[in-house]
């Protein structure tokens, strides 16, 4: 599983970081950044999906 954030769509709700703090952080503007390079470890995949389903801007893209 890989994950990315569409920068133009992200408006910094930070609900991704609430759901999966190991996977999402924030830049100095409060917008989301992905903290993990490459594959998301198995133990964080459920949380990552949860982050996706909590983003009000639908700015998170998961590719399996």
């Amino acid at each position, binding site marked *: 599983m890989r994950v990315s954030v569409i920068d133009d769509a992200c*408006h*910094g709700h930070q609900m991704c970081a609430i759901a999966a703090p190991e996977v999402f952080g924030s830049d100095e503007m409060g917008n989301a950044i992905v903290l993990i390079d490459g594959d998301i470890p198995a133990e964080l995949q459920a949380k990552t999906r949860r982050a996706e389903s909590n983003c009000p801007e639908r700015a998170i893209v998961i590719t399996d």
Partner: protein
Amino acid sequence: MTEVRKPVEDLLTDYDIFEPEFVKDPYPSFSEIRESQCPIARTERYEGSWLPTRYEDVVAIAQEYETFTSRGILVVPPFPGQGEGSYGGVTAPPITSDPPDHHWHRRLILPVFSPQSVAKFEQGTRDLCNQLIDEVIDKGTADAAADYAQHIPVRVIATLLGVPLEMEADFTAWVRAALENILDAEGRKWARKNIIEFFLAQVAERKQNPREDDFITELMNTEVEGKVVPIEYVLGVCNLMLVAGVDTTWSAIGSCMWHMAQHPEHRKQLRDNPDLWPTAIEELLRMYAPVTMARIVDHDVEFQGCPMKAGDRVLMAFPAANRDPRQFENPDEVILDREHNRHVAFGSGIHRCAGSNLARLEVRVALQTWLERIPEFELVDKTDVTWAGGQVHGPRKCLVSF
């Protein structure tokens, strides 16, 4: 003054967001409109407005900033003469700004509100909550709204802005006049005058004595494209911080306290599982979203079959969107560990609340501190709770005993 209010004939064509029942509990009306043939209601009251109630529609309008502009963001029209005279150009950037200016209006303040930046307010907020609790804990009873919630955000914002905490009562009065009692145009005018004069004096003082590590000083010295920002921008941002950061957050804390007073099972759930706090706060914000904003239609447009005209006002009922069963399972139930929660209590799109990380922190710390010290409490009288509504919804009197 006795108020003569025309009874509402039909919610779909004549809703009244200031009708006392609606102010207290708008959710049955939202739901009736949402499930009708016409989920975007219309009223001619207060110079007319549209009221979308479905999640999808509210979010679509928030995203379409070219059609639905932020020239007017109050749920009622501006007071006569607003925008005239010296400092008439002071608005409330970025909330009242449209692109392209909105971009830099917002960018300049975002770093102050990143999760990293707001973390430094946590301990101060906790100390403040503890002081407020010290004042009531031996009495066995308190007003969760007026003795507790009301004092927290205003002091946090005053600290952030670097303005005198002793003026708390004035700030609160101005904010209430600006945002809460908004049918009183004279009151809004009074609040605006006071806020602008106050911040003008703060700016003048800093011109004499610039301060280190100070929000207003830094704002005054910011340059955009080689030019220092205009004074109207500085005053406007300060105006917004005070108005947007106080009534909203205090309403959210109040509603959460009102909820917790009635739900021992949720108090226990949080006690047993403290990791749940961040998710629980989002769920409470979904359920009790305090803020409704407005948009002004830029050009004639048909939206979901509604003939909207240039200049029409559209109410962005985020609280209604947050209870749409098409988006949320069991929307009227608080589920502290809700899995899927794309709530829009903080709005959506380019104007999404810049202060949300601070707001969340305040709500969480206020509840945690209270629950640590007063784990068991209940409403004194369910029928004796009073509410503010319209633009911002939350309890204003909420007696609890413990």
